């Protein structure tokens, strides 16, 4: 119910076309890169997926995370802009239901992004490197990995958006956080646990053990941020 309602709300904000457009843009990154510099990459000695992601994932994930931040800001902006949130608060429903509805919508459109990017990586692999049996498995593994690593960022950007009445504040905080994430060295495990830095990680560079640690950390962060949001909303109600 909440998902359908939240989806209806964002219908006319252009969220879906924006994510589709952003997805196409991000999907073009590996295609263009290969079209111009294919020789440099086909000579490398590694699996096609890891070559392609190694060369392009920084830019693609940057686009993903920026889209997520903008999407989160817009979703709460429509509530605050004309005081719609006051009406929501008078409904016989928890405010956190809205938060999780919005989370579900943002995750769904993010999945769309990832699918488009995976298709593009798949196409590039087949076209420039030829088909192989491991390709599907590797791509699928990376897809789940990236999706899991996105969750904390989705939740945290929605949390900041839900706390700020003005869109430029949440957008400003989001932009500064993304910038901080780009400055974090990828080798430092503890620092890369910062939710905005996680989407920049690539499974190809990590051992299974480290991936498992990351997965646990992502799940823990997701639960923690959700709990924090529920708590903040409750406390905020007392003071309103």
């Amino acid at each position: 119910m909440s998902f359908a309602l939240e989806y209806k709300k964002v219908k006319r904000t252009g969220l879906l076309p924006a994510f589709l457009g952003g997805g196409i843009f991000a999907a073009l990154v590996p295609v263009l890169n290969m079209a111009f510099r294919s020789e440099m990459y086909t000579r490398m000695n590694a699996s096609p997926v890891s070559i392609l992601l190694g060369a392009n994932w920084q830019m693609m994930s940057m686009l993903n995370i920026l889209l997520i931040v903008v999407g989160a800001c817009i979703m709460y902006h429509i509530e605050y802009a004309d005081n719609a949130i006051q009406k929501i608060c008078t409904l016989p429903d928890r405010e956190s239901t809205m938060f999780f509805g919005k989370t579900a919508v943002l995750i769904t459109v993010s999945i769309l992004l990832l699918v488009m990017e995976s298709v593009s990586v798949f196409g590039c692999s087949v076209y420039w490197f030829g088909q192989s049996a491991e390709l599907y498995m590797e791509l699928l593994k990376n897809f789940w990995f990236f999706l899991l690593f996105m969750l904390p960022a989705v939740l945290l950007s929605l949390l900041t958006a839900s706390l700020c009445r003005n869109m430029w504040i949440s957008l400003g905080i989001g932009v500064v956080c993304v910038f901080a994430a780009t400055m974090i060295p990828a080798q430092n495990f503890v620092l890369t646990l910062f939710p905005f830095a996680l989407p920049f990680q690539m499974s190809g560079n990590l051992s299974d053990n480290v991936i498992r640690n990351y997965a646990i950390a992502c799940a823990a962060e997701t639960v923690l941020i959700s709990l924090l949001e529920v708590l903040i909303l409750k406390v905020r109600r007392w003071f309103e």
Partner: protein
Amino acid sequence: MSFLSLVGVEWKKIRRSKIFLILLLAAVILWIPSILNAGLNFGMQAEGISPENSFFIQGFMAMAWFLYPASMVVITVLQTQTERSSHGILKMLVLPVSTAKLCMAKFVVLAVFSVIQYLMSIGMYYISIVIVSHAQNYNFFLPPLFVFREIGRMWASSIPMLAFFQLLAVCIQTPVFSVGFGLASIVPSVLVINTKVWFAYPMAYPFFVITSEYGKLAANIETAQVRLVPWLPTAALITVVCLLISCFCFGQAERR
């Protein structure tokens, strides 16, 4: 109403926006990694660059590539949203002031904010120099004249980009598109500065200028140098066209 007082009015509108806090936060976060990794600058001597120059360039490169353009997008959001909430723009449009003047006043405020952000970053730069010089026992100080000249160049090169962001904010009514497009346009600038057509991409200008400066300061690093001939006319053309279109479009959607 004189143009200056219009700029004053636009300035007053965003007085209580808390945007300065965000810009300050950005300036602080910009220099923290540089302070923590200051020791790495000594290793850069192999490239023929002195540690103090390396510290200066690395910090401002990080700013020019993402933080500065992205905060300018945030400022355009601030300007359009304060106008649209409670239909402030409708009240502005009934005043006997030309819309083109209003639009230009907003652009001047945006440019002032860009100067403020650079000044904040320079301030933080000198604070971090004091910290780093103490921590590393090495004098990282660079003369303010040099710093201001380099940053002034970077700022001047970013004016076409500001005009482009102004165009996006004014002409695209749906915030998700104007912001999304603005932010997404920053990302490819890393690739664009390595191509021959960098001069046609305003979002890459400040990053290109600081990168070419890096090549000048580091003896062993070759970077593309600024050539004014195709660049200056293109940049001027982009700025004028963007500003003309945004002046023309300003308030059109509300006047329907």
